[in-house]
């Protein structure tokens, strides 16, 4: 199963995503709380997949996604967005994100997104 990096500025959301992934048999190898940490962790840990929140302090998810994709054009990234972020989600898919989930999400939706991105 996959080694996953979970990125979200809210501890609450990180836990929900992590729990959903762990239940599906994946291993959450690290968590990051902003875009910069996400890029650093991605570079250091080379996870199989990362879930990336869009709105975060310091460096937002889109900027981080751009940097991650330039580090590894094959990176598998799933965006975690909320209602009202349609254009940002579109932009992220254009930048190379494999999929997205919209909060509030159900655990099975996260699991599906991860399974499809890994397939």
């Amino acid at each position, binding site marked *: 199963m996959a*080694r996953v*990096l979970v990125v979200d*500025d*809210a*501890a*609450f*959301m*990180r*836990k*929900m995503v992590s729990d959903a992934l762990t239940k599906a048999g994946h291993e959450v*190898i*690290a*968590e*990051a*709380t902003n875009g910069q*940490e996400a890029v650093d*962790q991605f570079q*250091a*840990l*080379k996870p199989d997949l990362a879930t990336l929140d869009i*709105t*975060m*302090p310091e460096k937002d998810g889109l900027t981080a996604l751009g940097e991650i994709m330039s580090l590894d*054009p*094959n990176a598998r990234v799933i965006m975690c*967005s*909320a*209602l*009202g972020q*349609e*254009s940002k*989600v*579109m932009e992220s*898919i*254009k930048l*190379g994100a494999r*999929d*997205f*989930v*919209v*909060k*509030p*999400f159900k*655990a099975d*939706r996260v699991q*599906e*997104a991860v399974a*499809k991105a*890994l*397939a």
Partner: protein
Amino acid sequence: MDETAEYLPMFLAEGREHLQELNLAVVRIEETPDDQATVDEIFRIAHSLKGMSATMGFAGMAALTHEMEDVFELLRQRKGGLERSAVDVLLECLDALEAAVDAIESSGAEAITPDPLIARLRTLVRDDEEAAPAASAEESTSAGVLFEPPADLSELAQGRRVVQVHATLVADASIPSVRAYMILSTLAGLGETLACRPGPEEVETFTGSDIVAWLVSDRTDAELAEAAASVAEVEDAQTSEAVADAAIDAGETLPEATAPAAAEPSKAAAPRSANHGSSTVRVDAERLDQLMHAMGELVLHRTHVEGLAAHADVPGLPQALQALTRTSHALQAMVMQVRMIPVEAVLLRFPRLVRDLSVKLSKQVELELIGKDTELDRSVVDSLGDPLVHLIRNSLDHGLETPEERRAAGKPETGRLEISARHAGGNVVISVSDDGRGIDPARVAKKAVERGLITPEAAEAIDMARATELLFHPGFSTADVTSDISGRGVGMDAVRVAIRGLGGEVTMTSVQGEGTTSEIRLPLTLAIMAALLVQADGRAFAIPLDRIERTVRLADQTVRSVAGRRMLVMPDGVMPLVCASEQYGGSRTENAAFGVLIRGNGQRIAFAVSAMDGQRELVTRPLPPEVADGSALSGAAVLSDGQIALIVDCDAVAEGVA
């Protein structure tokens, strides 16, 4: 809700943090409207809160935060900041959200009616929207999807076989436009797209559920259908032949333009790094209390074993005990440390409070918070809010003057309120200072005479120290409730009771015309206390070590009787000698051997006891209110031999002789 129940405590804790940050940020934005970083921060936090509430199924909170986010988004683009009316609405929203969080905690339901607030939020942005109607033209352009192939398809096909791929999204697909884009770009990676619905220009605004592409590809129809279905939230994908093959030759497929490459899964298993991201853990406060409690028990048992060991002759026992003591001290220090939280947790409530009060009172105030990082036991921090709120209300209501009064007095129109926290020895000192009009002893005296607290003669001779002390008298401020800010029938005596309940003390100093400072002095931690054990009349008492100046053998000292009261005469001053036995309901013992010099209520007293049993670390327990009230005791502790020691409330004892 069952599925999310385990996340509730985390939701509550983080939600409250977010709300506090929002409160601070909104107050800040009112002061400096052009602070783009703060506007961004507000937007981000509101956004987080929305996601959290929606995930937990709290629809009312989610709806309200969603609307707030929209307002902030517009404000982000607008120059000139927020009007007061907008700030007021936003703050009301925060209050409603806070109430919702409280309601969720107590009853599980959010108990929020977001619609009136949502309506008001909408009026805030309506003007902008009217001014710039072009900004959000979100009319769906793709209501009726045409499955009819374009008329020129055969022409475009140039004799090649064209496959129609038709993907249907699930009914509640998250963002249809993005799904359409994903499907179309996946297909574009497998062949040449001749036409599609939605078209390239329509994808971004697509809101339907049917996506159709006509393409020329050397993949099998099944492969194409599978590719379309591989996109999440696609319910179904079908293929059919749109234009038949004109020649056997499949022709060349043109290189695809915009679609991202279908990446090969690269399984280059990278070496594992132990560098994990988060290094903090959230712990339920109750567990910390349990940990502290268990630690207290451990200290108790250790003391017991030490007592037994003193009479035992077991080789190696003293060394083993020493090691145990060392470790348990280290453990205790760590437990204490874990329980410490920055006083910031309570101070950050105040910018909002000060802002609201100053608006209400038409006063101008600049608030400064100093020493937010100062740490205190969390149980103390939790109980500190109300007393501090009272002091702040007092400062704003009675202390600080109106801008006109200040100008007349030659002061800057904007008053200053400073709340500071700092460590001083084993204590934390928190002070609330204003540069207002100060306390007028004569006015205090007049009121005290009216209340029958002092005689008119005493009022003549009143000084500032006596006047501030009168303010703490239970009878002083209970009677006339003059304002809804600091009145409410609770006076400074309530503050004092609360602070003493925390094992601390509160004092007030003032200079007329220049301002007033209230100072709260608190022990670092409440649960374990270093104390001197003493005996009086055969009973055990504990005196908090941080209140003890020193101890003396009474036989070596001079004791005089002044106006019927026994006084201990020391080279550095004369102080009342209080017989411990008599203080606590026994008879006065003339054979008290020792005097413990303690500080209480700002004065020195000598406490006469018959024996001293040494220093102990005690796990304190509160007394039931019916025992504690008026007893001059602040709690009790179980000693290692099972005996109970009562903890002396030094302030109350001192007050008794004042």
